[in-house]
């Protein structure tokens, strides 16, 4: 892409130009100067989309389900169609840095619909199920006016908490017969579920899987959503005893067959209900704030580190590291000295 020096055409993006949008997403992913500047200028246009995370182990049917959900929003039995963007994340190879991004294979039904925009991205070394630039891409798509943004994570099996930080509604997808018992599912992944989907309900073992999942759900909820952020705990509390019970969200369990579409209207209904819950309980504002705060926190940390590096000579930094290695300074003492500007002795 030889857009290295050209400014992004924000007007075109805001008025629905798909090529301009696609090029913007590339610049955001590269974290280029134009990409950053565009995000600054587009920021007032963000915050309108409903962000839905889709996570779960590989092969559970995340891409197929995303396809069905998008189809549903494009052609709802009741009410107007809504525009849908999909961001699908797949892992980069740790050896070559390359990737095969194959989620579109399951999303062929959406081809030819100008109200849908699908973008694949590789993790580029980032852990936790999303790429570093996923949040930025979502912001770009939000600004471009997509009403529903579906975010499919890698699903590497570990608890992918990143998506719960980004999305308003997090769907955890399970399927029968992935390992003999669902106990194998990490508790962490159920904790982030706003909605639990038992996909491949056409497969044997679905009854047992549902019983096991219900057992785990009843144990696990209600919970507090805790985001551990660089050592600081950002808690988003679920209201306790004193609050009316209608302010509690208990994650529903929904059976689906995403190859055929069974259960998808029910899932879309649950997403709508979750959105309504977020709005009426005040949880939406709380999550939004926590997310923005964590973004500012990250950026501030990076910026302060950069500024400090600029003000500190590499030689002095290396000298300090040597003193630590020689056990003449503790790491804590070293940091105190480096921040004080007093040269180590």
């Amino acid at each position, binding site marked *: 892409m*030889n857009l290295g020096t050209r400014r992004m055409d924000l007007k075109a993006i805001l008025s629905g130009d798909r090529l301009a949008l696609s090029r913007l997403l590339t610049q955001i992913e590269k974290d280029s100067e134009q990409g950053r500047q565009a995000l600054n200028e587009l920021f007032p246009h963000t915050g309108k989309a409903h962000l839905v995370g889709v996570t779960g182990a590989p092969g559970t049917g995340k891409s197929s389900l995303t396809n069905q959900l998008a189809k549903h929003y494009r052609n709802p039995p009741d009410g107007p169609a809504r525009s849908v963007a999909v961001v699908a994340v797949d892992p980069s190879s740790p050896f070559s840095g390359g990737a095969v991004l194959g989620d579109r294979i399951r999303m*062929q039904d959406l081809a030819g619909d100008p109200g849908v925009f699908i973008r694949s991205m590789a993790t580029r070394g980032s852990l936790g199920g999303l790429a570093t630039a996923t949040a930025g891409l979502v912001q770009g798509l939000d600004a471009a006016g997509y009403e529903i943004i579906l975010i499919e994570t890698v699903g590497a099996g570990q608890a992918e908490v990143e998506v719960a930080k980004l999305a308003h509604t997090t769907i955890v997808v399970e399927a029968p017969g992935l390992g003999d018992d669902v106990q194998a599912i990490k508790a962490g992944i159920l904790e982030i579920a706003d909605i639990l989907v038992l996909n491949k309900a056409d497969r044997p073992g679905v009854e047992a899987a549902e019983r096991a999942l219900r057992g785990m759900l009843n144990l696990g909820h209600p919970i507090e959503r805790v985001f551990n952020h660089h050592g600081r705990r950002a808690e988003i509390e679920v209201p306790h005893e004193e609050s009316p019970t209608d302010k509690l969200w208990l994650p529903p369990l929904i059976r689906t067959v995403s190859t055929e579409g069974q259960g998808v209207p029910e899932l879309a209904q649950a997403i709508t209900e979750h959105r309504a819950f977020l709005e009426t309980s005040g949880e939406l504002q709380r999550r939004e704030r926590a997310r923005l705060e964590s973004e500012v926190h990250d950026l501030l940390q990076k910026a302060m580190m950069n500024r400090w590096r600029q003000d500190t000579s590499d030689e002095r930094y290396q000298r300090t590291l040597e003193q630590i290695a020689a056990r003449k300074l503790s790491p804590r003492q070293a940091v105190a000295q480096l921040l004080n500007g007093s040269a180590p002795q």
Partner: protein
Amino acid sequence: MGEEKIRVLVAKPGLDGHDRGAKVIARALRDDGMEVIYTGLRQTPEMIAEAALQEDVDAVGLSILSGAHMALVPRILELIRANGQDNVALFVGGIIPDDDVPKLLEMGVAGVHGPGSSTLKIAEDIRRVVRQAA
């Protein structure tokens, strides 16, 4: 930040056969450090151009075994250019008679690779063409 990732769409247009060849290429390009968007079998020219647009790829690789390349390739090129993606390089692989190769290149195809081509060579070719276009 850092080095620029090359993004390639690998697609199998037409109704014929299997996508083994396309998968081999996809993996080879990944192993060369590229990001490959793989869309699978039975892609229409419209679907290919749309995916190339949404993914903002640098190159598109087509695997064509059906003999329909002289119809498919110009159509796909036309659609990609109509979308405003002037820089996207199109590569064609599969079973292409020697006589058709110059004709495809004439149309604006950046490279043609038959069944015997080494995947390393193909990756190198894509890298070179994309660098030149940038």
